[in-house]
């Protein structure tokens, strides 16, 4: 394989990794606050794909993007309100099972509403425009995805580390009850968390599907699981960890396909999960829980 081909595949991998990173952040944020693995997250990502298809059928693309993102965000908040909030004081396992329920509900609801026949994802001429960099060629979306991911992560880190809301989020993630004693509105913090996670999944969805041509009700399952692995790999609860995990899985997966092991590329992700859990269950940057008494 020539150097150019390798670089070409790396570029594709970085782009895929960027979309994975955006979705993985949703898992890690929600886990950080609620200690819940939101199994419905991949399906929120899938629903965002459908929202975009329908929005673009009636509106120009900038409006369609905004509609898609708003509707996805509201859906994320709504799911938390109806399926998780009533279980706030229930054992953690109950919320997790509720999340699995929501996941199947979304998949079957969209099968019922939109049928299981793949729907063509609309092409945004803007995003699909091909650029030449030396001998490499890439569509605009391929270049945009990693850049946008980095910018969004940067903004998110400022939000979490420098603002009052972010401080409340960090406090809540450690100790619900004491956070309440500070006068923090826990429900608001949780809603904000789901809003951010869903918004990023919506953005990730647009970037991901633009390169993928079609959406089915099950399009979210595998990417969702991979991004969950990315979050675990980086250390669940840790935002930079999820980003690193997303990029890593995206790049390795693309390179495996390029090397002719495409049948193995999905298996790799889950092998990675098993090895990580065996060797370093807290993930790359996960914190050990050392508590001083």
């Amino acid at each position, binding site marked *: 394989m020539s150097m150019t081909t390798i670089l070409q595949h790396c570029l594709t991998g970085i782009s895929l990794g960027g979309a994975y990173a955006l979705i993985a952040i949703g898992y890690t944020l929600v886990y950080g606050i609620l200690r819940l693995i939101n199994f419905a997250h991949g399906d929120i990502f899938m629903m965002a794909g459908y929202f975009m298809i329908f929005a673009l059928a009636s509106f120009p693309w900038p409006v369609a993007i905004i509609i898609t993102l708003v509707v996805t965000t509201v859906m994320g908040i709504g799911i938390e309100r109806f399926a998780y909030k009533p279980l706030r004081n229930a054992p953690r396992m109950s919320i997790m099972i509720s999340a699995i329920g929501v996941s199947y509900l979304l998949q079957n609801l969209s099968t019922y509403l939109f049928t299981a026949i793949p729907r063509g994802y609309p092409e945004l001429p803007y995003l699909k425009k091909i650029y030449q960099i030396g001998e490499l060629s890439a569509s605009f979306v391929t270049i945009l995805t990693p850049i946008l991911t980095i910018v969004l992560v940067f903004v998110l880190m400022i939000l979490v580390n420098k603002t009052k809301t972010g401080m409340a989020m960090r406090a809540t993630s450690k100790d619900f009850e004491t956070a*309440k*004693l500070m*006068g*923090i509105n826990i429900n608001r913090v949780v809603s904000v968390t789901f809003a951010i996670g869903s918004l990023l999944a919506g953005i990730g969805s647009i970037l991901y599907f633009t390169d993928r041509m079609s959406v089915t009700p099950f399009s979210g399952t595998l990417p969702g699981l991979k991004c969950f692995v990315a979050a675990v790999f980086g250390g669940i609860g840790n935002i930079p960890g999820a980003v690193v995990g997303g990029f890593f899985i995206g790049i390795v997966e693309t390179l495996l396909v390029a090397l002719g092991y495409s049948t193995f590329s999905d298996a790799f992700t889950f092998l990675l999960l098993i090895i990580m859990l065996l060797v370093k269950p807290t993930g790359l940057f996960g914190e050990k829980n050392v508590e001083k*008494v």
Partner: protein
Amino acid sequence: MSLLEIRDLKVCYGGIVALNGISFDVNESEIVTLIGANGAGKSTTLRSIMGLVPLTSGTIFYDGVKINGMETRKIVEMGLVLVPEGRRVFPNLTTLENLKIGGYLQDSKNEQKALEHVYELFPRLQERHWQLAGTLSGGDQQMLAVGRALMANPKVIMMDEPSLGLAPLVVKDIFSIIRKINEEGVTVLLIEQNANVALKTAHQGYVMETGNITNHGPGRELLENVDIRSAYLGKSK
């Protein structure tokens, strides 16, 4: 009328009665202490006042307003705060962030004023403002927990075993701070196992046993009481 009035407060966990209809008053600008053995229901009392534990029956009046059933943050907003048992500082936040989160409901002007006041009371917290709270010593964490509660500009501060697990010298510091806060006009409701220090500090004391209040009176008087001396102070009759 007292600032805090507890009437027939009853709390059950499952089928177990934790508080069996207790009543007591906390007058404005006093230090009041609840003493008693483990499992007497002291922490439950404070937690139910803050709305963290649902009441089975009874009423809690604060400043003439019935506060049972209210959300915790509304109670905090009214100026009633709790320093929880075991300090519970946020280990992943810096000292300064911990203080700021204590003033979460304050506007930035009040927050700044409260912060200066807390730094005045606890100069060490200013020295260590950049340090993650989880890496502070136990004594400093307790100071931080008290400072954090003061950031809410409270009228009543409730403390759950502030001396727990601390060296005697640090306990002395904590209690001198408690007296100082009180002299500045803040009402204090204090829970202690260290009955000796607590009763010496408090204006009023209540003795709790298995969900009931069995004795009460001015702190000094309880300190002289023979039965209490033998039960809680480890002194012979």
